[in-house]
């Protein structure tokens, strides 16, 4: 803390993850390593205990990089990432298991050859926390917490539905009682009703467990729903960061307005709609990605037409 810029640890900072003027560029490697253009430029962001920050923006705007920086997966090129006022790189060992991530596709974090229970217990097993029985009990408790029956621990991931798998992934992230969780497009691949369950689960769990959360998504409606405040990214920079109420009203930045416009909110009327004419609207933007065609039974079918 000799440079005097890093904030001193204060009581307010308990459980807070802070990005302090962080920039990031991918290095090219090699002797004359040139840095690429900044993927993230001068971003400052704080996620306090019990709070969810939503991060929206188009693909390639640097959302996922922010997540990786906040988790300490990538060190920033400039600036600092701090947890409770201390830079991450100075407390790597202490932070093990206290930061977790939930990804878009649960199959990315669940080993298909391991029983669900084993996967959920894995962060504990790796950290050699508790005895076998203790871990076993904990897995049961967590599955229950995410609304799954304890018996599911004996199943393999492919025996579960997409929504159940995502719950398992969440249980796995929660088992170390983390201080901070990054949800990276965690509900984007889910169907509307499963998405609703998962979003509610995240909200409920956060109220109970009090972790800080960074919710990354390109789905404005989902972000607005779970977040306390929303940061809008564009080309590596945060162009607007406001409490979520602003996004239920009218946000400042033109791009934020475009995002909010993509959610057609109830009661509003759309003048000059692309279809021409004016009509009353009532509805929403459930905006989640369908799985690639390859996953459906009708998929890939056409090869046989050859």
């Amino acid at each position: 803390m000799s440079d005097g810029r890093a904030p001193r640890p204060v009581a307010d900072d308990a459980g807070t993850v802070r990005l302090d003027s962080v920039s990031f560029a991918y290095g090219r490697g090699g002797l004359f390593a040139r840095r690429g253009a900044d993927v993230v430029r001068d971003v400052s962001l704080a996620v306090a205990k019990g709070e969810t920050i939503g991060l929206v923006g188009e693909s390639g705007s640097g959302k996922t990089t922010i997540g990786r920086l906040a988790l300490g997966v990538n060190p920033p090129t400039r600036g600092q990432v701090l947890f409770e006022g201390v830079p991450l790189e100075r407390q790597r060992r202490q932070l093990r298991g206290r930061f977790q991530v939930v990804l878009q596709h649960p199959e990315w974090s669940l080993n298909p050859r391991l029983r669900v229970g084993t996967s959920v217990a894995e962060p504990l097993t790796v950290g050699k926390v508790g005895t076998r029985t203790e871990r076993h009990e904990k897995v049961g408790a967590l599955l229950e917490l995410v609304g799954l029956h304890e018996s599911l621990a004996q199943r393999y991931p492919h025996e579960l539905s997409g929504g159940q798998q995502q719950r398992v992934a969440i249980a796995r992230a929660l088992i170390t009682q983390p201080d901070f969780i990054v949800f990276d497009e965690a509900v984007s691949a889910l169907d509307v009703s499963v998405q609703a369950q998962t979003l509610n689960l995240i909200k409920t769990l956060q109220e109970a467990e009090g972790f800080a959360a960074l919710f990354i998504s390109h789905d404005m409606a989902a972000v607005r729903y779970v977040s306390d405040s929303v940061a809008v990214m564009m080309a590596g920079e945060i162009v607007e960061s406001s409490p979520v109420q602003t996004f239920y009203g009218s946000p400042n930045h033109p791009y934020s307005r475009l995002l909010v416009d993509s959610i057609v909110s109830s009661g509003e009327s759309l003048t000059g709609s692309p279809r021409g004419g004016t009509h009353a609207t009532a509805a929403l933007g459930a905006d989640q990605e369908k799985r690639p065609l390859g996953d459906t039974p009708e998929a890939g079918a056409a090869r046989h037409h050859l």
Partner: protein
Amino acid sequence: MAPRLSSVGSIGMVIGRRALSGFVTLLGVSVLIFVAIHLTPGSYEQVVLGPRATPEARAQLAVQYGLDDPLPVQYGKWLGQAAQGDLGISLITQAPVLDEFVRRMPVTLELAIMALVIAFIFGVPLALVSGLAGGRRAARHGTRVVGALAMSVPDFVLACILVYLFSRSQWFFTVGDFAPLGEDPVANFRAMFLPALTLSVFGIALIARTGRDAVQAVTQALYVTAAVAAGESRWQIIRRHILRNAAIPVLTVTATFAGYILGGAVIVETLYGIPGVGLYVFNGISSRDYTVVQAGVLLAAAIFIAINILTDVLYGVLDPRIGSRRARG
């Protein structure tokens, strides 16, 4: 989005970079062979003069060939000569090794090209038929069994069988009656076909198997579904989309196969009595003609590196994604 670089420029750069690293590899290989050969029991003098030579005669020879110099000095001299195209003189025939290589190279090259052509003539249709047959079990298992068989039969076994069959019969193809291509093309073809076929069997199996998997993967790609949806016919889809996309993995194994031909040529030329580089190197090995072996290994390494560079360039041509990634990186 990457702006398109001039493809000629980027390919030139790739070749340049690869050639440079290839040259370094070649240098390394030359050190290894040199050391290995000097560590093997039995010295030059023994080979040339025989076991009963007098110590004086040996010493004289050593001075003549510079064999009493320290190893690094010997290597330096040899390298200097090799750089000027002088690969030394055969210890047995006293003829310059390079001349012999140059004279025999066309024969081996012809053999290799024939083997490649045969491998493609049989391998590609097999790959297409079995790849497009897709789920049909007979086709699937058929190609698998034939492929496994073809890949696991050693070429010397196959060569022995063919030599046995064709040397005792009067079926068009001949064994051991080599005639240069320039003098009698028909006799040349009759003599070269069987060795080329022997070499190609492994390639046929390799190309058929890899090609089948590639074709299967490509037929499941969304762009093929899109082509079906656009009303393209079966043949249009094969011609426009499947061949080129499936060629990419096949190219990789073709490079492997070309490397295999390099080694296989030694055995096959010997068994069929084809006067190519392979036979020359084989004779060199059996008569401990170190200069020949040394030059042969170096040549093989150089060809292998060249094949790899060529493959890399072809990759860039076939798969634009690789080309532009390279140009950027």
